[in-house]
């Protein structure tokens, strides 16, 4: 039965000119590529910044960066990686590309808003980059931007730097809201016939729940940013206490820096899961596809995503144990933090049980997916340490925390990003990425990040504080720690340089890669069943696909082929091949 939803291709005709096709494009696939390339570009900036910081820490005698520059690089590195790279890439990049294709829609439901979302995102990136060139340079307040120091003289970039940062964040939030609006509405309203919620691939579930969380959490950052802008420009005292800076009394009185911390972390903790949930979703699909086996416990996986999404709004104050808080609050947030480990552990077990006795193909995406599981477990376990108040207090502000969050929400999601890029690249370009380069890239990145971050746990337990620009002349830091720092720096530079392999592979393969065909991984989900690869405007040609089964029919007994696409009708007898075995 043919039907044409009104949010259909024909609501906006196929673009003709170069400008409407590739620049002011309303096509979700082009917008996804724009988002991804922008995010990767700004991510490279953040990667270079981290290299410069490591050179300072490992080889302080080089004098490459001074203290101000170090703090500025640290701030920008953190903010770019978390917000402008990971959030934008997962939601704006993968969300944009995959949601309409995976649910069988012709595009996002509000294509014009979708286009605006990208251009606002680009504007926010440009404003952020402009902060390198304003008087005083970018802010060096740390990515958490805590007042009062963020806007008090003496902190690098306390004038223009922090303002450009806050304005850029506000613009980003507008972009993320417009994007989130699209992703949520598209999932709810534009699924094709037969695509019930419980048939959606876990990728869509992860991005869907993360988008809802973004809609709820980003306003907290927005409110905080607006209030801080007012504190900095109009002299209000939302966050700024009475303070004497540089021997001069500032115009503020009585404000509450803690209020900012609450607002910031009410955004900041869900933000961790806004990055993690899409990664969970994408990695589930990578594992299932490359292990040729259905995802273990699909229902459990969906409800775990939902549970994590809900719980993540009740744990924010575990970032504030050392800010001083009521004991009962500390108890509550420690418990809620440990409770959130339960659905997360369910997901990890289910990934491992999916791999159990599976027909594992060690393709590049699969390597990255398995690398993710290992890294995520390591990072997650140290999270259990830090979630407990009594353990957190001695470990707070040490390299243990740096190791923890880099493992769990730096390296782990970025491994998923790489795996997913290698996996969906053939759909985007119609060509395969080079396998040898991919393998090399994986092993250097995976082993290298362990060499970088694993020793940091020891440095942290030894008591080496984070956020220091130089560690000479402290008696409690032994020579061995300096040696380790130098070692980590060498590893970091190698891993950083190895990303060139990936970039080369990405651009070279887009032009010269081996043609992939429509479904090189023999995958079941809808995006691999498009009539054209790369999919044309409107995605599905004349007729929308119809869905008859879930996305995980791999190795169904009694079926010759080891996968059954979602579009394949169930057998006439009324029960599926899968049922016959019971």
């Amino acid at each position, binding site marked *: 039965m043919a039907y044409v939803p009104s949010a259909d291709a024909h609501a906006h005709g196929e673009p003709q000119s170069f400008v409407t096709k590739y620049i002011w494009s309303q096509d979700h696939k082009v917008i996804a590529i724009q988002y991804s390339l922008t995010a990767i570009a700004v991510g490279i900036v953040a990667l270079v910044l981290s290299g410069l910081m490591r050179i300072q820490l490992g080889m302080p005698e080089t004098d490459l960066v001074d203290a101000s520059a170090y703090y500025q690089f640290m701030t920008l590195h953190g903010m770019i990686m978390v917000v402008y790279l990971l959030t934008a890439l997962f939601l704006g990049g993968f969300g944009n590309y995959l949601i309409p294709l995976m649910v069988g829609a012709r595009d996002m439901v509000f294509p014009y808003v979708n286009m605006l979302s990208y251009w606002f995102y680009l504007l926010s990136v440009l404003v952020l980059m402009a902060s390198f060139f304003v008087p005083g340079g970018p802010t060096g307040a740390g990515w958490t931007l805590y007042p009062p120091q963020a806007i008090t003289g003496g902190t690098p970039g306390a004038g223009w730097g922090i303002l450009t940062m806050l304005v850029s964040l506000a613009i980003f939030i507008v972009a993320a809201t417009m994007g989130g609006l699209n992703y949520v509405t598209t999932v709810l309203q534009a699924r094709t016939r037969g695509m019930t919620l419980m*048939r959606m691939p876990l990728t869509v579930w992860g991005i869907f729940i993360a988008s809802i969380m973004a809609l709820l959490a980003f*306003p907290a950052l927005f*409110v905080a940013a607006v209030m801080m802008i*007012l504190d900095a420009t109009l002299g209000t005292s939302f966050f700024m206490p009475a303070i004497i800076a540089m021997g001069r009394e500032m115009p503020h009185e*009585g*404000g509450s820096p803690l209020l900012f911390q609450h607002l910031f972390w009410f955004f900041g903790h869900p933000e961790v899961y806004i990055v993690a949930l899409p990664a969970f979703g994408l990695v589930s699909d990578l594992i299932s596809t490359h292990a040729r086996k259905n995802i273990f416990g699909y229902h459990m996986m969906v409800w775990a995503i939902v549970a994590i999404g809900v719980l993540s709004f009740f744990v924010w104050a575990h970032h504030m144990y050392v800010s001083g808080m009521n004991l009962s609050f500390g108890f509550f947030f420690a418990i809620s933090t440990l409770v959130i480990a339960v659905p997360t552990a369910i997901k990890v077990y289910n990934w491992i049980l999916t791999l159990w006795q599976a027909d594992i193909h060690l393709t590049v995406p699969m390597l990255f997916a398995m690398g993710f599981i290992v890294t995520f477990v390591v990072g997650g376990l140290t999270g259990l340490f830090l979630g407990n108040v009594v353990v957190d207090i001695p470990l707070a502000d040490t390299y243990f925390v740096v190791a923890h969050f880099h493992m769990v929400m730096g390296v782990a999601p970025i491994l998923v990003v790489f795996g997913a890029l290698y996996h969906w690249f053939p759909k985007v370009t119609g060509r395969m990425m080079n396998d040898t380069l991919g393998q090399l890239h994986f092993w250097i990145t995976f082993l290298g990040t362990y060499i970088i971050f694993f020793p940091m746990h020891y440095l942290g337990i030894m008591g080496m504080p984070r956020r220091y620009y130089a560690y000479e002349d402290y008696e409690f830091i032994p020579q061995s720690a300096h040696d380790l720092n130098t070692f980590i720096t060498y590893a970091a530079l190698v891993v950083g340089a190895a990303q060139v392999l990936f970039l080369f592979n990405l651009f070279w393969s887009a032009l010269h890669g081996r043609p992939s065909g429509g479904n090189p991984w023999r995958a079941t989900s809808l995006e691999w069943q498009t009539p054209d690869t790369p999919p044309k405007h409107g995605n599905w040609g004349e007729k929308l696909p119809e869905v008859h089964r879930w996305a995980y*029919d*791999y190795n169904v007994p009694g079926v010759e082929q080891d996968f059954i696409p979602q579009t394949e009708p169930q057998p006439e007898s009324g029960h599926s091949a899968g049922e016959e075995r019971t």
Partner: protein
Amino acid sequence: MSFWVDRGHPGRGTIEPSRTAGRWPGPAERSKLALRGLLILLVPLTSMFGLLISAYIMRRHMGDWQPLPLPWQVWLSTLLLVLSSAGFEWARRAAQVGWVDDVRRGLLVAGVLALAFLASQFWAWRELQQAGLAVATNPANSFFFLMTGLHALHLVAGLMAWLRTRAVLAGRQEPAAIQSTVQLCAWYWHFLLAVWLALFGVLVLMA
């Protein structure tokens, strides 16, 4: 079922967990989509104003807080916004039964009253400024200006949608289009009224 139960069976089969469960909402339809989109837009807005209120509640316990004497104009504003919202409701109901003239009248009333609301808010701000109660004088003032300012900005955005609705009416579109766009505006207006009442309640009761 689980892997240990399936030991005896050849292959690694699957059963879709929900072949019958779950509902497909049917093909996407323009008016339904727009309404759903608007409702989802209200989620971040609710979150933003809600967080603003909780920040207000936390901040007012600090020592330097001096309650702000609310200017009488905000009571007038409240009345104007209630009437503006009522005007939109009138237009919305008229659109449902296709009385285009009433839609037009309702929209005009609603828009003029909304502008009057903004004027009244502006008047209140001026009054405070002239009384020496500027934005940065006291945190209570800062919150007052921030809350009313953000609300007013959202109303200005609503007025742009209102202009578009009048363009749709002038363009003699089909009744379904008119109905849809008027309905969207009305919902948004009612939401902004609810937000205003919440902010107003907080400002009055928790000064």
